[in-house]
């Protein structure tokens, strides 16, 4: 690794090159009535022209953003109108969370692409060429002929070497962010980049050591401008890289570059790019060991996804076999299709505990037995899911001439929903089944009164619900199969409904930030959760469930028909960092992950956490600048998070397994 470059980025010294952008693009465009595509293009041209080439010492992969945060292209008033016109605007409204065909552009070069695109595309490519030319001149002036040589070829022509390919990718990715696209994923990097690496190694242009250093230099580039990328919190930027997985013939594609990426990530200990590992029953244990080494490093990745489950699930959703086999993950864990997916996979979320709570209040007293009550739950979950399909059906993206080059065939237009608080909801139903109907020691009126006053006047009720009812995560069939039923209902409620683009809706097991937002929307719940307590993240046990350990958790969370609710959303396991002190902990963790895959789990993510360190970091943030934690679908530097997110991570680990 280039230590001086690493330190330079780590210490954020490159931030001093940045100039604030003061132009009020939106106001000017609004006054002139400029069309949206023109706005995006014109702003991109101006921002590209404003970039100052900076080549850092020893840097091989160049392009550094020298402008600060980018002002909007629509005024507040225009956004309101735009929102009203479309019924709903997704997040920031700009194109996001997609995975373009980087490979094709890197292979063909932008000269060729320029011939195939419209005027906006041509103008954006010319802006890219201009900045590249200025970088080339700077390189020559600084005696960096190596950089000048690379830029003399790419991005005009297709890459012929690993370095050219990496530089080309960096230019494209840099440009996407600057154009306003966000949550710009990386895709199956080890697949589309491998031929360049293999070519260099075979021809003797690079040694393995040099290739590794080059790769690490390239990995650093994901961390140069990332504080400027939009997200709910710092780190929520969607730079997901997918490694391994099978091809359409079923062959495992983990290659030398996949392993190099895992090593690079472990050596840099930075939160970007975020590593996802595709695995299957054919994955050798050695791959899990490499992944476990990264988990041990405390980065909160790799996140694993199971091809044996995900590919058939995607095919059942209507994706072709070939495209399904090429799946990657979006910003967090949502499964998306590179090149052809023009989808919104995080369009909203179903609040399971809220649906259960409403049904308890409206229907519980009318139900003669638990079956009747569950019939009401089925109906309520399905109806809620169906209602959700109508609300955001026509969500648009603002135009993106660059994404139009990367995705020329919008073959898939599906939308996906998260599902918040599955364990909380399943536990609530299990508690109701156990105490209201089976033991009959809680009457419906008593339950509702307790929920209303947050158990203040009935601590015995809290005790029964919270500690004397079966919980998901303990391999207990009652809550586990209730979760199955809830997810089936979710999928059933979405089935058959189409969005305005003809796409379907996919049910998921992720939560994103809804584990806080949705928890705030409901009071105390029948699982014995007090008002104000958060839900678990993603597909995970209740935070207060007394679980026996990770194998029980894995068994509980591999019983559901996840193939029917396969938008994505991992089971999260937390391990005390000290566990990794055991000499063969890597081997054991690798076996545990493989066990999850063999049991038919769809996605899993593991954390090594140290509560003492996190608490100390809250007191002395300056001493813990590099402490990394996993939030919902991405890793972040702990000290850069708002306190509510910090506190949730600390609370979560109290239940480490």
């Amino acid at each position: 690794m280039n230590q001086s470059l690493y330190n330079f980025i780590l210490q954020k010294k490159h931030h001093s090159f940045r100039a604030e952008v003061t132009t009020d693009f939106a106001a000017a465009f609004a006054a002139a009535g400029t069309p949206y595509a023109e706005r995006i293009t014109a702003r991109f041209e101006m921002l590209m022209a404003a970039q100052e080439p900076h080549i850092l010492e020893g840097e091989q992969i160049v392009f550094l953003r020298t402008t600060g945060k980018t002002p909007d292209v629509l005024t507040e008033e225009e956004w309101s109108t735009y929102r009203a016109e479309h019924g709903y605007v997704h997040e920031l409204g700009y194109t996001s969370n997609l995975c373009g065909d980087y490979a094709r552009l890197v292979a063909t070069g932008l000269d060729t692409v320029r011939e195939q695109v419209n005027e906006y595309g041509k103008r954006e490519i010319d802006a890219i060429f201009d900045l590249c030319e200025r970088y080339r001149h700077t390189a020559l002036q600084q005696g960096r002929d190596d950089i000048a040589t690379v830029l003399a070829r790419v991005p005009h022509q297709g890459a012929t070497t690993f370095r050219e390919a990496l530089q080309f990718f960096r230019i494209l990715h840099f440009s996407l962010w600057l154009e306003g696209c966000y949550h710009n994923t990386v895709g199956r990097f080890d697949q589309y980049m491998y031929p360049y690496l293999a070519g260099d190694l075979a021809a003797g242009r690079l040694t393995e050591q040099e290739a590794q250093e080059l790769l690490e230099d390239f990995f650093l580039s994901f961390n140069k401008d990332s504080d400027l990328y939009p997200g709910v919190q710092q780190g929520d930027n969607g730079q997901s890289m997918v490694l391994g997985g099978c091809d359409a013939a079923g062959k495992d594609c983990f290659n030398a570059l996949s392993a190099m990426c895992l090593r690079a990530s472990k050596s840099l200990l930075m939160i970007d790019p975020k590593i996802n590992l595709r695995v299957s029953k054919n994955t050798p244990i050695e791959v899990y060991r490499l992944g476990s080494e990264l988990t041990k490093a405390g980065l909160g990745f790799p996140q694993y996804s199971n091809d044996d489950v995900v590919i058939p699930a995607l095919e059942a959703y209507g994706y072709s076999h070939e495209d399904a086999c090429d799946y990657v993950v979006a910003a967090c864990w949502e499964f998306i299709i590179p090149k052809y997916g023009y989808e919104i996979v995080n369009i909203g979320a179903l609040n399971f505990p809220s649906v259960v709570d409403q049904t308890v209040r409206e229907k519980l007293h009318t139900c003669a037995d638990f079956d009747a009550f569950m019939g009401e739950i089925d109906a309520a979950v399905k109806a809620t899911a169906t209602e959700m399909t109508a609300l955001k059906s026509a969500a648009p993206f603002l135009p993106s001439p660059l994404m139009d080059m990367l995705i020329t065939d919008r073959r898939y237009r599906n939308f996906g929903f998260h599902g918040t608080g599955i364990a909380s909801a399943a536990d609530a139903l299990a508690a109701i089944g156990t105490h209201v109907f089976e033991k009959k020691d809680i009457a419906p009126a008593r339950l509702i009164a307790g929920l209303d006053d947050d158990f203040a006047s009935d601590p015995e009720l809290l005790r029964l619900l919270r500690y004397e009812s079966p919980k998901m995560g303990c391999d207990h069939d009652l809550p586990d199969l209730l979760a199955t039923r809830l997810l089936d209902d979710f999928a059933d409620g979405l089935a058959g409904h189409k969005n305005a683009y003809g796409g379907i809706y996919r049910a998921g097991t992720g939560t994103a930030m809804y584990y806080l937002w949705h928890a705030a929307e409901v009071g105390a719940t029948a699982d014995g959760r007090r008002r104000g307590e958060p839900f678990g993240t993603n597909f995970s046990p209740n935070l207060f469930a007394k679980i026996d350990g990770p194998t029980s958790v894995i068994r509980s969370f591999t019983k559901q028909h996840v193939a029917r609710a396969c938008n994505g959303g991992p089971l999260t396991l937390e391990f005390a960092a000290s566990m990794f002190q055991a000499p063969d902990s890597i081997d054991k963790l690798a076996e545990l992950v493989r066990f999850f895959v063999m049991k038919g789990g769809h996605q899993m993510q593991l954390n090594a956490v140290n509560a003492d360190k996190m608490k100390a970091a809250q007191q002395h943030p300056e001493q813990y600048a590099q402490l990394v934690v996993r939030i919902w679908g991405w890793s972040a530097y702990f000290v850069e998070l708002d306190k509510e997110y910090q506190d949730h991570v600390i609370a979560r680990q109290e239940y480490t397994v």
Partner: protein
Amino acid sequence: MKTGHIFDIKEFSVNDGPGIRTTVFLRGCPLRCVWCHNPEGLEPGRGVLIRQRGCLQCGRCRIPCNHSDCQGLERCLHACPMGLVEELGRVWDAESLAKRLLRDADLFESSGGGVTLSGGEPLLQHEFVFELLGLLPVHKAVETCGYTSADVFLKMMEMVDLVMLDIKLADPGAHRRYTGVDNTPILENLRRLKASGKPHLIRVPLIPDITDTPENLSAIAALVGDSPVELLPYNRMAGAKYPSVGKQFTHLISKQENNPIDTAMFQNATLRRDAHS
């Protein structure tokens, strides 16, 4: 059907033998090592653990109750709104426990793991242990202090695949002082273990100035010879659980850091990097 008193079942216990293992903690121990970090496992039979953090001091757990499972305990198990009162030494029959443990038989098989019995001192409940071991067709390990009769120790060796034996102090006087018992039966069982050819591991807890002295370690080294040894650094959190079980941690441990350890005085020793668990 024999029954036993169990105070914890821990899945994925990484420090208790090969592969992925579940460790069962049996309650009751004949020793009273002053440094013991599992004080909730010392007394035989049933009891309660009351975690202090979050306690509202509401007194509900002290109100007499009629729950059948609270009989004989000094607190009610079903009263705490914070879930802080936990039963220790829950009664399991061998068959139910075996069934619970064999839930993970597939994982034990694929990872080369199995079940480890720990404690407390598992052999204090040897009749239950033997019945349980007979019901477990997986790799089996026992963690023992070795303070038991020759008959029990020999039978245990026949039934398990790996024995992990703690050796704390070589000097009989020091052993009595710090663990409350004579070490003669332990050292005799050590000789039986070495003679048996059974796979084994000797573990030595390193307690500052008590067991981690060069005199004690070299004496242990002479006793264990070529047996594999694992040296377990002192766990500074050792006293953490004492208030929860109404006990007081010792004042006899003068410092928190181990003396420098020279593994070379042993023929075959490794120093664990983490505090033992």
